[in-house]
């Protein structure tokens, strides 16, 4: 499954519909993700992509496009 779809699914689990996701929307200002939702999102992404996301690598200012890029790169690593 493409990275985009897997990310959409993770957002869906949090209750954010894929129709709300725009490449340029940032997590906090664009999607209204609060600090608790951020914890849920990071844990869910780490599980989905079997990666460890270092503190701050994805934060309130990160956009959907940047998340896709970050996880495409992280998932490509062996």
């Amino acid at each position, binding site marked *: 499954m493409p990275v985009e779809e897997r990310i959409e699914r993770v957002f869906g689990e949090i209750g954010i519909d894929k129709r709300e996701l725009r490449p340029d929307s940032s997590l906090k200002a664009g999607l209204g993700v609060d600090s608790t939702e951020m914890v*849920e999102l990071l844990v869910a992404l780490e599980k989905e992509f079997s990666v460890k996301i270092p503190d701050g690598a994805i934060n309130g200012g990160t956009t959907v496009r940047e998340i896709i890029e970050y996880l495409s790169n992280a998932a490509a690593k062996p």
Partner: protein
Amino acid sequence: MRRAVITGVGVVSPAGNTQEEFFGRLLSGESFIGEIDRFDASRYPSHHAGLVSDPGREEIFSKRLIKKLDRFSHMALSASDAAFKDSAIDLEAENKENIGIAFGNALGGWSFAEEELRDLWTHGIREVSPYQATAWFPAAPQGQVSIFYGLKGFSKTIISDIASSHMAIAYAARAVMMGRADVMLAGGAEAPVSPYALLCCNTSGELSRTGRYRPFCKGRNGYIIGEGAAVLVVEEMGRAVARGARIYAEIKGFGHTSDGMHPIIPDTSGEGMGRAMTMAMREANIAASGIGMAIPSANAGKYADLSEGRAFLKIFGSGVNELPFYSPKPQIGNSLGASGALDTAFACMALNNGETPCLNVDEPEFDFFGGGGKIKLAKDNIIINSIGRGGVNACLVIGKS
């Protein structure tokens, strides 16, 4: 002296989520107690409950919000929304610093917490939802309602077993009367039908094992659990009159006492319950002859019913034989921290409709608690009791101004 009146009523209950359903179905005598089917409760000594089929208002509260909440907060939000709409208060035009919340709850949100505890012990800390911290605790409904509507006034959650929301209504009235708030949302929510919470209720020894909830009957053997929420809009009378609000009732007096004797059993003499009733009636400046009906706590416990029955005898004397009694609990279950608010919501609707059903007590322990049917209310003041575990006694007198 500022006075506090009720101008909005919202319920989420086993008998439905609108006033028409709730009052109409209770009036018809229908029972909403059934076998618990949400999980296998067959091995619990008491496995019946009054279940809410719909916690409500999916069109208002998003999935994104609801998934962070336990059922009791969801029901509190739905009841608050119904109460606000019923009051016709335009929230956008209000100074929300003058609107507060007083809610009651006894147990917290165990449906949510149990699954997270399971995940903690079987999979470890990373599997626990970050919302556990804000979902489970008894003040969660207060917080969620405050956030959803942006209410920034004087607010509290009261934990006092069956008397929790009953006391919260008194607390709200006092806040309005003292000028700490102009409007208070008052009520409570309880969701005790989860495997662990139901077990705790069972081990207290207070639940009926027969599937029947028969307060004041000689064969009574405890109450049946229920879930639900009720919220009232409590408002300063002057401003309610000025805006032409529908006023269901004035909160005229209340009394709170403690028996201070035993962890579970109340004082069977009824002294503490009677003292709370005297306080409430004195504050309301209403004699026993001015009371049109009573909503007893009706816990159906061996000792709680003696306490309450003797208190009524003491306060009402021979007049007790003319006093109509009714409690919604045998039909919808005892929803603990929400029960006092559901009782008071019912009382508002009875005053508004001018009629009430009456308790149907077969094999009566006392000869005055009633023989069923329904009556027209002859006097428009209602006395409402709640007895919490160990004799935490609360009495409220509401009525037309």
